[in-house]
């Protein structure tokens, strides 16, 4: 087989990037947010044009001027944001842009047959080609997205954080498909923040930093610490802050009793004391996020109560929860947490501008002052609070969301996937931040798909499975395997 070599030195986002992908390998692309991974992918898939550099496929230099050209050269891309059309069926989505047609009429039967074949190959024969994609869960849409890449008979498939919306069972399935594909000589460019995934299926690793290649064709066995050093430019402890322990007489701040939301979770009771971090561990779809949203009043429970410092909250009312000192950092930061076009300071004061206002008149000076103080305290980069928040990296956007609740002054902080889309370096920083908040007396309830994160960060862990709390234990007395066992038992029952 011929080797496939690609060079992309770009203008701004990319400043001399080399990437070499061999047939049949899983090539992992690592780098912090903003290192240039997404731009590189867009160049590869024809969405962007490189200003300099060459792309070579099978010893021949090629120009990829638009997405169709990329596909013609055998490069298919699965984007991070699900790029499916909700109103079309599974089959129509998979063959979108390359519909099989005779004289303008689509060959429905043939398309359905091929779709079924691809889905069977992906281990999902249960998805009907005629199902409307909008009705599928996120994981199902991911499958459709992958099926579309396969439908092109691609020789290189780029996967941008494919596991972000998948639970562990689905990730296993994804890996199986990846292995099958590589066995057939297909090359995979795999992008993920999760080290354990890279260990599991990666062959070689390329590390990007600031638009340059800083690590070339490293073996997948390269120690994590070494990779982090390459990504960040210095050695970072990927470590969790120490747990000082919560005194037994610390008052219960958040008290949830028998909370039930039909179809999502049932009879959930939990308590979080001042200065305590409680983690909810469980799979995607186990009801974790819904529990947080219901505590926050964004959904209305059918039964059960939420009390903060002994006072019961009005069900289904976000303003009531906010007034009682509850803050939520939502799961989908961009679509649920931020007004992207607005200035950083206005995002930080989104919950408090009405309070600082005098008789309905805004006090922007006070807002800026409060936002700047938090930006400094949280080490927001860049510290300029006037710029639009969309220009910040994921980790810094998350800090801005936390800053909002710090300005507000929270007794209870609910964190839903606080490190999703946040690079490894910034994670430790966020962990430290959460612990500092707890040390200052905040009750923190955190949800994460990454079990080590829950175990490392929390004082106590509740394991959620199929909408029920199946176990709770101090974080030191439980390990990842036990959590997984509990999760599996719970969903089997």
């Amino acid at each position: 087989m011929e080797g496939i070599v690609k060079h992309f030195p770009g203008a701004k986002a990319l400043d001399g990037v080399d990437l070499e992908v061999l047939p049949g390998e899983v090539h992992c692309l690592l780098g912090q947010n903003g290192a240039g991974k997404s731009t590189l992918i867009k160049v590869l898939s024809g969405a962007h044009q490189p200003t300099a550099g060459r792309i070579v496929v099978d010893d021949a230099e090629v120009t990829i001027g638009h997405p169709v050209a990329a596909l013609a050269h055998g490069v298919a891309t699965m984007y991070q944001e699900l790029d499916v059309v909700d109103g079309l069926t599974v089959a129509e989505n998979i063959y979108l842009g390359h519909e099989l047609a005779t004289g303008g009429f689509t060959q429905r039967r043939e398309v359905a047959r091929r779709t079924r074949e691809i889905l069977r190959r992906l281990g999902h024969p249960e998805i009907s080609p005629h199902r409307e994609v909008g009705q599928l869960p996120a994981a199902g849409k991911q499958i459709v997205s992958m099926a579309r890449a396969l439908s092109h008979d691609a020789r290189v498939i780029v996967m941008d954080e494919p596991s972000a919306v998948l639970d562990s069972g689905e990730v296993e399935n994804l890996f199986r498909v990846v292995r099958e594909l590589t066995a057939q000589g297909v090359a995979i460019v795999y992008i993920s923040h999760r080290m354990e995934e890279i260990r599991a299926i990666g062959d070689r690793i390329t590390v990007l930093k600031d638009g340059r290649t800083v690590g070339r064709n490293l073996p997948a066995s390269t120690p994590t610490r070494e990779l982090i050093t390459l990504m960040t430019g210095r050695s970072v402890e990927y470590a969790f802050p120490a747990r000082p322990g919560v005194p037994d007489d610390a008052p219960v701040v958040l008290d949830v009793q028998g909370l039930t939301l039909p179809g999502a979770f049932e009879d959930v009771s939990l308590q979080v004391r001042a200065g305590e971090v409680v983690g909810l561990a469980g799979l995607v779809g186990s009801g974790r996020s819904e529990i947080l949203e219901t505590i926050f009043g964004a959904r209305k429970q059918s039964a059960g109560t939420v009390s903060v410092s002994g006072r019961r909250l009005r069900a289904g009312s976000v303003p009531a929860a906010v007034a009682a000192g509850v803050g939520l950092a939502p799961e989908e930061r961009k679509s649920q947490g931020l007004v992207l076009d607005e200035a950083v300071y206005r995002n930080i004061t989104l919950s408090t501008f009405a309070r600082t206002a005098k008789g309905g008149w805004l006090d922007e000076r006070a807002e800026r002052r409060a936002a700047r103080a938090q930006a400094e305290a949280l080490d927001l980069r860049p510290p300029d609070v006037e710029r639009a928040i969309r220009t910040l990296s994921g980790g810094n956007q998350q800090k801005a969301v936390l800053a909002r609740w710090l300005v507000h002054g929270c007794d209870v902080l609910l964190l839903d996937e606080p490190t999703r889309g946040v690079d490894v370096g910034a994670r430790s920083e966020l962990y430290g931040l959460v612990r500092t908040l707890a040390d200052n007396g905040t009750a923190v309830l955190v949800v994460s798909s990454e079990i080590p994160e829950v175990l490392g960060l929390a004082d106590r862990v509740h394991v959620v499975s199929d909408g029920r709390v199946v176990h709770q234990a101090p974080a030191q007395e439980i390990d990842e395997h036990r959590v997984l066992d509990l999760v599996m038992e719970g969903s089997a029952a």
Partner: protein
Amino acid sequence: MSASTAAPPADASTERRSWLSGPAGRNVGLVVALALICVAGVVTGGERFADIDNVVTILRAAAVTGVVAIGMTFVIISGGIDLSVGSVLGLTGVWATTVATQTMAEDVHWLVMVFTALVVGVGAGLVNGVIIAYGRVVSFIATLAMLASARGLAEMISNRQTQRVEVAGFTDFFDLDPLGVPMLIWIFALVAVAGWFLLNRTTFGRRTVAVGGNAEAARLAGIKVKRHTLYIYGLSGLAAGIGGVMMLGRTTAGTSTNGVLLELDVIAAVVVGGTLLAGGRGTIVGTVFGVLIFNTLTNIFVINNMSTSAQGVAKGVIIVAAVLLQQRFANRSRPT
């Protein structure tokens, strides 16, 4: 923390925004456009265009559309649309004249008429707001329904008759011209200034932008999105009510056909003024310019005895050109 030390190069390049793409820059573009139209006016109309009386004529003609457009700006920034403003304007007018001419006959104070129009306008707006915010009907449909029913109601009330306004005080008030400027223009200016403060200096304005920029984020930050949406449509109704009173002042007659198709002029002015139809961004100053651009253009056509059909074509071209320019600036200012 090293994670965030280096500003990502991808962002660094895009964040160096062209100043033209900022709010100030967009307004500069509007000033240039209006200036060009004025130049065209002077060239074709000469003395007849560049005359102080003509300027007053333009502003007087722009006043009603302008006031309604200020209300519409809030609706569109919040991510909605209000198609009913023209019909509601007509309804407020005939309701007010009906009160004046029939119910209490000559005794009625003219401020009662004004008050009636404003209450009817706010009422219609709140009905829109309730249906949109609490009934979860999209604003396009809800206000389309109001467009039809408010017009129908106006015809029922007025029996399709034109009702002349003969209340003393009222016509006197609209004949006033402090500092040589007619009352209609004063009202437009006052509403525009009030709208500017409301949008830029109050919690109401901040909530409007937040709801339009990201309603879910606003809700999860504790903002009462539904209630605020209700208020916004109430405000738009109020603006239509003020417009209805101004129309009575200008024409001294209430008819159910007042304000037919006004919503299109209003929306066009707001959009040309740089307010994004998708919500989250917009300015009052832009809207004022949008209104002035269209009315100045109409004036030039009238001065030159050109047909209204040609005006329609010119308006269409301006709308498309303005939106194309905006998109260009918006793309330049946004990261990919």
